[in-house]
């Protein structure tokens, strides 16, 4: 049942890509990001800046995950900006963290679903 559904999805995507061209598919995904953001280290803090995206109004919370580190929920999870775009500050999220690690930013939307919004390899030191 699941396999059949997966094959159907693959076939649909292939047909769509063949019809519109793969570049169209890539370009459409670029033009309509769910949430466009950047993640930066500033001292002991991590700042996530949300710029735009078709789903920024549905975004309820943001959370950061740092490879090899378990952050308390109070530090790792913050409400999304009221008006959709803006900065979200994760105070002390990278205190004492050194080396090179992957940083993931996840968003939880109003429909209750969570999505990986950004994965970036950060050189903390």
């Amino acid at each position, binding site marked *: 049942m699941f396999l059949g559904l997966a094959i159907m999805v693959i076939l649909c995507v292939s047909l769509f890509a063949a019809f519109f061209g793969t570049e169209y598919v890539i370009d459409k995904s670029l*033009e309509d*990001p769910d949430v466009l953001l950047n993640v930066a280290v500033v*001292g*002991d803090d991590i700042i996530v800046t949300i710029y735009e995206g078709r789903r920024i109004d549905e975004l309820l919370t943001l959370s950061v995950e740092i490879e090899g580190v378990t952050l308390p929920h109070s530090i790792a999870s913050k409400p999304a900006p009221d008006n959709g775009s803006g900065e979200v500050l994760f105070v002390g999220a990278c205190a*004492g963290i050194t080396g090179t690690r992957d940083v993931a930013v996840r968003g939880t939307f109003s429909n209750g679903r969570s999505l990986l919004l950004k994965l970036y390899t*950060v*050189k*903390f*030191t």
Partner: protein
Amino acid sequence: MHVALDEFTPRIEEDMNEIFSLTEATARNLSGVSMGDSSVELALLQLRRDIPASYNTYIVDTNNTIQAITGTSEEQKPVGTQSCANITEEDLKSSKNTSIVTSFYTFNDGKQGIIVISPIYSSNGTYTGTLRVSLDTAYLFSGAVDQLRSDYGYTIWSIQQDGCLIYYEDTELLGKNTLNNEIYTEESSFNVAQLVTEKPEGNISYVFYNVGWVEKGLINAVWDTISFPDGTEWRIVLTDDISMNNIDTDNEHSSSQFTTSELRTFVEKAYVYAQTHTKEEALKAFNDRNGEFINGELYIFAYDINGTTLALPYQTQLLGINRLQAEDITGVKYVQREIARTEQGGGYVYCQYPNPAKGFARELKFAYVMPINNNWFIGAGLYMDNTSFEPCGDMRNEMISQVRNFQYLSKIMPEDELISMLNDTNGSIQVDGLYPFASTYSGTILSYVMDPSVIGNNHLGYVNSYGMSIGREAIPLAQSGGGLLYSLVWDPELERDVYVLIYVEPVTEDTYYGSMIILE
């Protein structure tokens, strides 16, 4: 111009003679010493400390294999490999057994420069190999050029007899041959190079790009020659292409019309564009001089994470060129600093860069950079109003020697004793105008002469008014072998942030040491 040249040339000559003298003296001291002897490492560290323009000091045997080199375990990796310059006993004999200065090389780690080589003999007089000092010619010249700019408003380029460029302010051109490289194929510049290589001294006027590569102009030049004991000659060419007479003080752009906050907004707009278009579309837009990503003095530049230029609308001749080793007038590798900043998600960076509105004088440029992904990044910069610094080449050299001295001392005394010496603000190890410090790689401050009250704190979380963390910037720089960076740090006496030039070096496997000069 001749007066300025007559003042400049002896300074480089003296600096090189000092390097020959130090190298030869160390080579004599190493005669008959086994490579396993601890005195070898100390001798190499002392020599590197005494020659701030050196990248490294090392010993090569008669088979051209590197036997010993200074540095951390990572930097020791070339031991056992072949040296890039195969100099034989015959080469040294033909130069009357004095030091040799080589042609220009790109070393295995991507750095570029020349090598001074002196022979080493065993106690019975048998030739056993050579002592070598790899030199950064940009460092070698830049202190004196900085002074020349300040005193006269002139600059310098220098070539070897074969036409190879060993000094020019745009350091990415170093190593290019002025007689056959495509950049110099225009008749005017080719003729100049040919004339300068043929004649030991002279003067000429020619049309070429001015410093900054934005436009061409008439350049007047006078040149002279420095000769070394091995017969090598360097032509030293003094030019007026940064003449202070060119400065348009009434130019509406002579002071920045933008704030740093507007700079950031400009880069963020480009970031959104790059994230919502293909890379090709984005780079096309950033390189378009009539496009939306040019606004007065602001324009978007882009590099890949290895330092190759992807967008530079006013210097399109540099597209595709790798600028990873490009240095500013002080020796700060600014593209490397920008890459380091983007690897932390982006932010502000400083460098000194030619300002077209000020006759291409080097001024502090404030850049804001952002990664598009882990493969490439963008940025833009603006010149800080009224922020130009006095020449600091000599002080910079003292700072480098001081830090390298800590490296040497760490080999002959326990580290806690060395830290105590650093923390003694009245001790003999201190130099007026320099503020040394030491830290672990996890960020704990062991010494900080500018503000001893912070000793013992972790400085990874310390940020200046532009969100820059010196610790997070300095640690990877030290781990990669050391170097220079600019920053703003809190001065407890002045009770405000001050611009500083910082030099750091790895000293042990767990610690790095550094020092800083206040630039204002």
